[in-house]
Every structure is written in structure tokens, then in C-alpha cells.
């Protein structure tokens, strides 16, 4: 069979190609460029090969911030996903309270990152903040600017406060899309409410939860502004996550080569983990 070849189709693709080139490919290639060379300014470059990559991969500092990052992401996922589902399950399905709940849930999502960081910073200050004063008033010594555990807990609670709503809203949408017939059939089949959750609601939520987990994973893995404003990565380096560390290397120390190599490794890790998540969650879907 003869296929018609029509090269005009490319004309329609060009705008997208140009757009993607300018906002993704060219900046990325600049980073690649920096990652394999040494520069002392004035556009003078020396070839360094994979030296920066080796340096980053072997540095204890990178390992430490990578582990901190994994721990943080793991924690917030372990809290936000179950909590989000639980909140979505307890929200009313109809009636005047639906919109009240939805607006309340959406509020934290509307607040800019740095404002969230600043809010929690002020809220949690041990001497003047409402939360900090209260905890100390209960006789628990709490100072997130000096105690690593307190700093971690504050950061995690802040993220849970800011982002659980996203999981709630997605899970709620998923729950609302389950037809009544499923619940009616379950009633007729004599299913317990646990069985309804396990056999109907959770399987039907699978797709939205995949999206929720992917979004929360990517966002939390790349988190910068909130912990930067809240703790600045401290005390010491205890809340220095990957992106905070990266900015310190690139803009603080101006080590552009190692920073570029680290960016690429960071990017590949996010990509890889997303792929693993997606593959695991979608397993057995298309049979």
C-alpha cells in the first residue's frame, strides 16, 4: 500500500518543538554543558569529563541530603495518603456542607509556598509563636531552630497541613464517581463496611491515588521554599534536603560544575522513582 507522504505536517509541530526547546531542552543542555566542564567565568571552559559526577556520587554530603530527602518524602507520603483518604471518606457526599468542606480543604492549597513557610515559622517560634508557646507551656521543651527532631517534626507537619488537601480532593472526586449501584449491591451481598472500603472504594480509587501519590512524591522530593523559609536547612544541616543543598552549592559556593552534575543526577533519580511508582501502581491494570 502506498502511503501518502506529506511533510507539511511538520509545520504544525514546529511551534511546540520551539517552545519545548526554549523552556526545557536548551536550559537542560546548558546544565549538561556545565556538568562536564570547569569554568572560571568569561566563558572560558575546560573539559573535565565525568569528574563532577564522580565527585557528587562519592560525596558524603550528597548521600546525607539524599537520605534526608528520602526520609522526608517517605514520611509525608505515609501520613498524607492515608490521612487524605480518611478525610475524603468522612466528608459529606451531598448537602450544603459539601461546598463548605471543599472550600476549607482547598484553602491551604491556595497559599503561596513562601507564605506557608513564613506562617509556620512565626506560628512555631518557641518564644513568640502561638504553637511554640503552647508546646513549651505544656512542659515540653520545643525549639525548632535548635532541636533537629523539632525542626523535622515542624517541617513534616507543615507539609501535611499544606498538601493533604490535594490527596483529599482527588480521593473525594474518586469516591464521588463510584455509582450508587455498587453500594446497593454491597448491601444486598451483606458486605461489611470494611469490605465495602477494601473491595469497592479502594480499588475504584486506585487511579486517582496513583496520580495523588505521583504528584505528592514529585513535589515533596523537589521541595525547596517551605523548609528554606521555615528552617533554612538547619539546625546545622539537619533539614537540608536535596534542592536546598543544590542551591547552596550552586549559588552559595558558586561551584557550577558539581551543581550541574548534581542537578542531572537529581533529575534522573526523580524520573526513575516516578517510573518505578507508576509501574508498580499500574501493574495488572490492562489485563
Amino acid at each position, binding site marked *: 500500500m502506498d502511503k501518502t507522504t506529506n511533510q507539511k505536517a511538520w509545520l504544525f509541530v514546529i511551534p511546540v518543538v520551539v517552545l519545548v526547546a526554549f523552556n526545557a531542552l536548551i536550559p537542560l543542555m546548558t546544565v549538561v554543558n556545565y556538568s562536564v566542564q570547569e569554568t572560571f567565568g568569561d566563558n572560558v571552559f575546560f573539559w573535565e569529563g565525568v569528574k563532577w559526577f564522580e565527585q557528587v556520587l562519592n560525596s558524603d554530603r550528597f548521600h546525607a541530603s539524599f537520605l534526608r530527602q528520602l526520609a522526608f518524602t517517605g514520611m509525608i507520603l505515609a501520613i498524607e495518603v492515608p490521612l487524605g483518604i480518611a478525610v475524603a471518606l468522612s466528608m459529606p457526599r451531598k448537602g450544603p456542607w459539601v461546598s463548605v468542606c471543599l472550600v476549607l480543604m482547598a484553602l491551604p492549597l491556595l497559599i503561596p509556598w513562601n507564605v506557608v513557610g513564613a506562617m509556620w515559622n512565626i506560628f512555631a517560634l518557641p518564644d513568640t509563636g502561638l504553637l511554640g508557646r503552647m508546646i513549651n507551656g505544656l512542659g515540653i521543651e520545643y525549639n525548632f531552630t535548635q532541636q533537629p527532631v523539632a525542626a523535622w517534626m515542624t517541617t513534616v507537619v507543615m507539609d501535611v497541613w499544606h498538601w493533604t488537601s490535594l490527596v483529599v480532593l482527588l480521593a473525594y472526586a474518586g469516591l464521588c464517581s463510584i*455509582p450508587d*449501584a*455498587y453500594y*446497593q*449491591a454491597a*448491601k*444486598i*451481598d*451483606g*458486605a*461489611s463496611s470494611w*469490605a465495602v472500603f477494601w*473491595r*469497592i472504594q479502594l*480499588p*475504584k480509587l486506585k487511579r486517582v491515588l496513583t496520580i495523588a501519590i505521583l504528584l505528592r512524591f514529585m513535589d515533596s522530593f523537589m521541595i525547596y521554599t517551605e523548609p528554606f523559609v521555615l528552617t533554612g536547612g538547619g539546625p546545622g544541616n539537619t533539614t537540608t534536603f536535596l534542592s536546598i543543598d543544590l542551591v547552596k552549592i550552586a549559588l552559595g559556593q558558586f561551584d557550577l560544575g558539581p551543581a550541574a552534575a548534581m542537578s542531572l543526577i537529581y533529575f534522573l533519580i526523580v524520573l526513575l522513582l516516578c517510573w518505578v511508582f507508576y509501574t508498580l501502581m499500574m501493574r*495488572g491494570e490492562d*489485563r
Partner: protein
Amino acid sequence: MAKITLQHVKHSYLPHPAQPQDYALQEVDAVWSDGGAYALLGPSGCGKTTLLNIISGLLTPSEGRVLFDDDDVTDIATTERHIAQIFQFPVVYDTMSVFDNLAFPLRNRGVAEDKVKLRVNEVAAMLDLDDSLRRRASGLTADGKQKISLGRGLVREDVNVIMFDEPLTVIDPHLKWLLRSKLKELHQQLGITMIYVTHDQTEALTFADRVLVMFEGTVVQVGTPVDLFERPEHTFVGHFIGSPGMNILPCEIQGGAALFAGNVLRTASSLPTKDSERIEVGVRPGFVRFDDGGFAVEIVNVEDLGRYKIVVVAHGGSTIKMIVDEDIQIPSENPRISFDPNHTRLYADGWVVE
């Protein structure tokens, strides 16, 4: 198994219904005897599903009682009514295998596992599902899934009634027929009361021994398919059942005779005694014939369907449909028609006059 009785059942989805229009279901009294095959027929929104959900206990009626045999079950939960219901869209538990789906209602009721296995295999054999027992239910086609829904009703031995809420809506046309015969076969084999809700007259008339026709929240007629066809008790039944539906023509009562556009009609009805707002005459297209002794009409349209023709004629501002056998010649000049008096009835405000 049980006889199901509805006593003065009314239902409104509003919290404080005031007028008749507020009720999705006007007062219904009905008896479903044990082991019957019933159909609930009516257009969308006539209250069929409401009535079904009241029997199954998914809805509690605003007024009236539901009895299973002599026990009042109005306030008893769905689970304890021992009923099965199959919905318009097949409900399967996606993550479970076909076997586990069928076993689900038994396991929920704490039936021993060897008994479960026995029942599931029996039911799977009845529904020709034996080959796919190990498969995941989510991978089946719509008709397979609908069979699972049905199977979940059949595995329980204590089922009083199986109810079908437009179960064939999402099934391919050529499989509809197969599944419908399967239902009929199961009914004969098991003798369980079955109530089948549909808006499709073919489905209702082929499945059921007795059909309840519903219209605007009211049961307008209960009867065998033949009753519905030959003796419609309400003009709605007349035009909803049969294809084309019954001719319903304006009528006047004058001087002790029923007149249609000035022509005296002989009918099977007596003359209405009460004052009614609207008197109509109903006659099915099959009982209208060309007759030189009848009244003159004008032929509007002839549709040839092979074995018969549908002829549309006009008289006195009304159109009348007639079904004419293929071997009957349609008069080309001055056609005159008459109605078969044994199958022509008067309707007062929609209801038949005996």
C-alpha cells in the same frame, strides 16, 4: 421464597410532600405471588426503580407497608430481606476473581468454605461461567459481568425474590437475546420469583407471565401480555404497548351513542355514566379495516413492511393508523374504514369504560 404484598405504598423523595406531584410513586397496591415472573414496564422516570428499591429495602417508603408473606418488612434492612438485585450497570468487585465474586455474598454471611465451593460451582455451571472462574472479574465483557451480578443473587439459597433493574441496557443486542432466554430458563428451573424492570415492551412481554405497566408513578394495569394487548385499561397502556400503538381518538357522547367526528361507533364499552372531562375511543391498528359500510377517510401514508402494511388515514382532523395484511388491496378511490366493535373501547379521562 415468599409472596410479596405492597399495601398503600407511596413514596416521595421530598422531606415534606404536599401535593400529588411531589410523589415519585403514587399509591400502589400490588401482590407478587411466589414463583412468578413479573415485569415492571414503563417509560423512564415513571417510578419503576423507586418501586423496586422499596421492595429491596434500599428505600423506605414514605407511606404504606411492604409484606413478605405475612411479615411486615417495611423497616427491615436490605440484608435481612433475602433478596437479590441486578442493576442496570453490571456491578462486579474488580479486584476479585469470578469465583470470589460469586462467593462474596456467602462468605459475608459466614457460610462454610466447602459449602461455598459447592454452591459457586453449581451456579457457575448454570450460567456457563465455569471456564472463567479463575479469571479476574474486571477483565470480563459486559454480559459476563452481568452474569456475575446475577450469579451473586443465585448462590444464596434463601433468596425470596430476584429483581432486575433494566439489566440488559449495556449488553450487545445479539447477546441480549441469549441472556434473556437464560433468565427465562433459570426461572423455569428454579421457580424463584423474579421481577424485571424495563422500559422495553419486547423484553417485558417475552420475559414475564404478568406485567405491571406504570405511568407517572401509578400502576395503570396489571395483566398478562395478552390482556395488555387486547384489553388496555388505560390509554397509556394502549399506546405504549404494541407497535404502532393504539389509536386514541376524541369522542363525544350524544343521544345515547358514542360519536367519533360525527360517526356513530359501536364499542365493547357501555356508555360512561359519570361526568368526565375527556372521552376518547381506543382501537388498535390491527382492528381497523377497510369496509365499504364504514366512514370515508383520506389515505395519508402507506408504509410497506413486507408481511403487512401500516396505513395512515385521516378523518375529521384525526389520523388513524391501521395494519393491513399484504394480500389486501388498498382501495384507490373513496376508501372507507370501520372499527371492530369487540375491540373498540371508550376511555373516560384515560381509564377504560367497561
